[in-house]
């Protein structure tokens, strides 16, 4: 009975203060929402990667690939099968429909290790899959995108496939790609032992390729998701401050009630349990709202994230969010954890306190100089420890621990720093009013400090992440300009065709630069080796990060190779060292940046390359033509029988890349605004709380002649100033955050380091936005002061002890 009465008494507080109840639930819900939304996006992306990897089992199995060229003869397949080899043929190619490129895969379902679900469903069974006209299996999103395309075989939905991939019978796909009897590779089935000698005897043109570690798309995009997760965690940290503030307020204001309940016979233990139960209730409610909100956020952002991942890494991700327990459970957990962290301290104190002591105001809004000093020391210690974590640890975990420690230290350092700043201004104040303003600011600081710390974190996170994304964008587009220096790229598919068309190309373009590449073993890992002609296009534009002397002449004479940054990090080599290419040690002449590619890569001069690999394919070209003539040249080449999908217009390619980045920005901006909103909410709750507590301070000022309107305006000024100071202090914190993300987290996750670019205009925008948010949050409390009835202010004096 007493339990029920006690709980009702506690809950009645919220009925009398619905605003506070809403704030508490909303703060916690918003924090949970951001976290959950990010987790949902990550979970969906991961599920897509797994689908892509599993559905065809191609990445997880070894394969037999041509030693030269990119075709496997059908006879080689039959020869191997007739020798008892367990292999299955695969054809891969691209399909352009509209302005989208799809990856098209042909499987032989009788021998394939796996066939996506959906194949051969229906009354006609396998014959429907074989055709004619055959079937193309695809993710429902892809089917929707291709709806109405009547030139393609009928599409069938398969839950196993990642978006952007079409799978058909090998015969159907061979026909679509004009492959004739040629195959792309042979997948090696389980149980087939590696026997290179037998392979060399049976099919000398093929070699065994181990499963490609480098195509682990989960690893490739890890950095992107880690950044998203970091964003989610920061948002949650910001939300935690709100919850902490709201819970603290609720406890402080109910001390009288607690005393009454204790006097009525409720033991401290029961009271603590009741409060814990109440908070659990609040947490569950907030978690529900937060998870729902998170779903909305994720659903709104996922299409952009999917576009980013597809554009950046060629990773297909579904455009719809599924309700996966892994993310909504994590949302629930974080809401409970957050409430627990915010509540534990109070419940613990209550459970141990004597009955009367519960009534003594702990004055959470009152701080001593000593407390601030202790906080400053703690902050300093944490800030000093942060670099140590970075130095001692390694890997992503250390990178994130460093970030966490640094942000915590910075947040803790904020109130002492602000107090010092305000004290400085107070000493320099010229008029009594400004002196009072600074002093009053300082008095308010402890009550606002949690909210201001939240603002600091939000602004720092925004600056950090936007700097990182912006740096990435600048670097990547600059790099694209360099790497895609030629105006037109051709892939003619076959060497014979290329030889036939070569005279036409020579006559059409200012320069025809052949490109040839083969898979190669680079420093013990599977990678790709390119042959590149000696031409000004490359000499002038190629993005070298480090180079030895005479790079280009030495490259063209075969004295060494250029390697990409990933290979340089992986093999730990620098110009002047050597790196093994298919077992031969070659000097490293230079290192180039190679974003968006997870695998090791090396470049050799074209002539030494072809001498070494006479059978390498020779059907890809870069063409230099005057940029304005690109459409004409393309039309001319098309008239000569070159298909549009065999030509890539550099400008078009760049445009696609830029679109991708705009979409990335859309995600970042959305998250920026959301975290700032959470911080603004924190300021609002804190100011509302303070407004009630501060009457004793305001009443005398009103009594000596300041109008209520003026007092309200000063209230706004004060909030704006505090926000401004906080934002200014957040700037360096955000830049350090960006540096850690770019120089530590990215290198760990990606294998490349991005140069940091500074975007002062962005900072100005974020800071303005943050101050505006603070002003909006302060507007309501300020108005309440400005419109407070004089009688209430007068009563203050009567109430004063």
């Amino acid at each position, binding site marked *: 009975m007493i339990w029920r009465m006690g709980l009702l008494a506690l809950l009645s507080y919220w009925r009398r203060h619905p605003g506070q109840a809403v704030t508490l639930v909303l703060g916690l819900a918003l924090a949970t929402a951001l976290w959950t939304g990010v987790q949902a996006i990550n979970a969906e992306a991961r599920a897509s990667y797994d689908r892509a990897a599993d559905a065809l089992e191609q990445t997880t199995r070894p394969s037999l690939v041509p030693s030269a060229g990119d075709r496997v003869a059908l006879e080689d397949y039959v020869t191997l099968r007739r020798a008892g080899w367990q292999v299955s043929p695969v054809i891969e190619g691209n399909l352009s429909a509209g302005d989208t490129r799809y990856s098209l895969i042909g499987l032989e379902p009788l021998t394939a290790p796996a066939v996506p679900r959906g194949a051969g469903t229906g009354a006609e069974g*396998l014959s429907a899959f074989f055709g*004619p006209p055959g079937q193309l299996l695809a993710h429902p999103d892809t089917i929707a995108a291709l709806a109405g395309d009547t030139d393609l075989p009928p599409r069938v939905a398969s839950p196993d496939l990642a978006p952007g991939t079409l799978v058909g019978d090998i015969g159907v796909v061979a026909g679509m790609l004009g492959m004739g009897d040629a195959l792309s590779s042979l997948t090696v089935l389980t149980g087939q032992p590696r026997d290179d000698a037998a392979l060399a005897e049976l099919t000398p043109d093929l070699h065994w390729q181990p499963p490609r570690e480098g195509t682990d798309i989960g690893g490739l995009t890890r950095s992107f998701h880690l950044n998203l997760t970091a964003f989610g965690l920061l948002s949650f940290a910001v939300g935690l401050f709100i919850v902490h503030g709201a819970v603290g307020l609720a406890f402080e204001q109910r001390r009288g009630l607690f005393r009454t309940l204790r006097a009525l016979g409720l033991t401290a233990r029961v009271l603590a349990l009741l409060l814990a139960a109440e908070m659990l209730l609040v947490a569950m409610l907030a978690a529900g709202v937060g998870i729902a909100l998170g779903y909305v956020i994720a659903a709104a952002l996922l299409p952009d994230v999917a576009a980013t991942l597809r554009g950046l890494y060629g990773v297909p991700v579904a455009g719809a969010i599924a309700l996966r327990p892994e993310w909504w459970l994590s949302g629930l957990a974080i809401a409970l954890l957050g409430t627990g962290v915010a509540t534990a301290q109070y419940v613990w104190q209550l459970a141990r306190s004597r009955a009367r002591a519960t009534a003594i105001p702990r004055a959470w809004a009152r701080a001593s100089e000593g407390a601030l000093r202790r906080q400053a020391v703690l902050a300093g210690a944490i800030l000093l420890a942060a670099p140590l974590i970075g130095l001692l640890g390694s890997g992503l975990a250390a990178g994130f621990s460093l970030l966490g420690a640094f942000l915590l230290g910075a947040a803790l350092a904020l109130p002492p720093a602000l107090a010092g700043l305000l004290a400085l201004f107070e000493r320099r104040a010229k008029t009594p009013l400004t002196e009072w303003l600074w002093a009053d600011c300082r008095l308010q600081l402890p009550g606002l400090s949690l909210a201001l710390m939240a603002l600091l974190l939000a602004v720092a996170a925004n600056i950090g992440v936007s700097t990182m994304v912006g740096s990435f964008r600048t670097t990547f587009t600059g790099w694209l300009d360099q790497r895609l220096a030629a105006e037109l790229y051709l892939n003619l598919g076959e060497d014979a065709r290329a030889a036939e068309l070569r005279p036409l190309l020579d006559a059409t373009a200012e320069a025809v630069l052949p490109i040839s590449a083969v898979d190669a073993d680079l420093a013990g890992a599977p990678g790709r080796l390119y042959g590149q002609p000696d031409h000004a296009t490359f000499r002038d534009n190629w993005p070298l990060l480090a180079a030895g002397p005479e790079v280009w002449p030495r490259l063209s004479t075969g004295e060494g190779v250029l390697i990409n940054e990933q290979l340089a990090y992986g093999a730990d080599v620098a110009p002047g060292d050597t790196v093994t290419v298919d077992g031969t040690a070659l000097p490293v002449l230079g290192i180039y940046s190679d974003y968006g590619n997870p695998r090791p890569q090396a470049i050799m001069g074209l002539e030494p390359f072809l001498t070494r690999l006479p059978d390498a394919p020779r059907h890809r070209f870069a063409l230099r033509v005057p940029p304005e003539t690109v459409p004409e040249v393309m039309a001319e080449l098309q008239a000569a029988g070159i298909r549009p999908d065999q030509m890539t217009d550099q400008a078009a390619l760049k445009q696609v890349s830029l679109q991708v980045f705009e979409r990335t920005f859309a995600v970042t901006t959305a998250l920026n605004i959301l975290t700032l909103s959470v911080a603004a909410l924190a300021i609002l709750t804190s100011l509302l709380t303070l407004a009630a507590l501060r009457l004793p301070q305001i009443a005398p000022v009103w009594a000596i002649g300041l109008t209520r309107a003026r007092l309200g305006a000063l209230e706004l000024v004060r909030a704006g100033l505090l926000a401004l100071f906080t934002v200014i202090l957040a700037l360096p914190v955000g830049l350090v955050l960006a540096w850690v993300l770019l120089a530590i987290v990215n290198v760990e996750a990606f294998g490349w380091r991005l140069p940091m670019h500074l975007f002062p205009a962005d900072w100005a925008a974020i800071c303005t936005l943050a101050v505006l948010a603070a002003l909006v949050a302060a507007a309501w409390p300020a108005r309440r002061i400005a419109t407070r009835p004089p009688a209430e202010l007068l009563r203050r004096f009567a109430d004063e002890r």
Partner: protein
Amino acid sequence: MNADRRRLLQMLACTLPVPALGQGFAGLGSDADGFAIPQPDPSFRFPADHGAHPEFRIEWWYVTAILDGADGRQYGIQWTLFRSALAPEDRAGWDSPQIWFAHAGLTTPERHFVGETLARGGIGQAGVRTDPFEAWIDDWSMVSRARPGADAFSALDLRANGPDFAYTLALDAEGPLVFQGQNGFSLKSATGQASYYYAQPFYRVTGQLDLPDGPIDVTGQAWLDREWSSQPLEANQTGWDWFSLHLDGGEKLMAFRLRDDGPGYAQANWITADGENSHIGDGAVTFTPLGWTDIDGRRVPTEWRLQIPARGLDIATQPLNPHAWMGTQLAYWEGPISFSGSHSGRGYLEMTGYD
């Protein structure tokens, strides 16, 4: 992987379907759209008819052998190449509508090994060539080494393997080809469903089995069946029980019963030791199950009584290994048997439609 393999099997089941309700075993009761239909009084032409008949829906080259090992134990093997057509024609390359699949079984008293493989027609991974004769799929093969001028089936080399076994056998015929049913026209129902069916039941066998414990030299007798059709089953027929028996006196007996919702439809051929062949029609042979074996929840009659009063035959059969279940995607029971009663000897039993 397993899930994927199951998926593939389900998918294949649509093409070479296992019993669907009212469809009969292997979907063979379905309409013959465009496929040729066997006609009575066939005249076979060799070597052409040893080869494939793509205008028919289904066809097989089927060898069973009862073997005695040098270790004194009994063994049995099965080697079957199936052809299943999606359309009544053949084309080169991936466009070929012909699908090939093959089953290999090796039965010991304790174990039953199964191998299976599949291939597309048109690309050379599987097929049948008549001159010189060769039937193959992957590295499984049945190759003629007949003397010039002799029937291609008079001498064959047979090989197949599975994940944990392999065999290489030499088959030498000691009698003529035998035309089952009525001169090779084998009725499967009272309403006229039929197949073309001939056999070579007179093989002597020598060769080697490769088992997990090591190789074993074997000798014995083998029986080759050639059969093709487009709709050998009625829609209400659910499966068959089929016997090929080597009698100790040198006679051969082929007998089968197609099960349906009524008494079933039975046929047999009695072949004397010198190859004289007489047809025994429905009603003249009775099949009575005597004992059952539970195999993964299926109840399979593995012991039988077979009676042909007109020939004075009344025998009871015993399996060498009652668990000779072919867990292939078209699942069935197939294994060596021995029999006693009015006659004794050994043979092979195949039972479909118990899956």
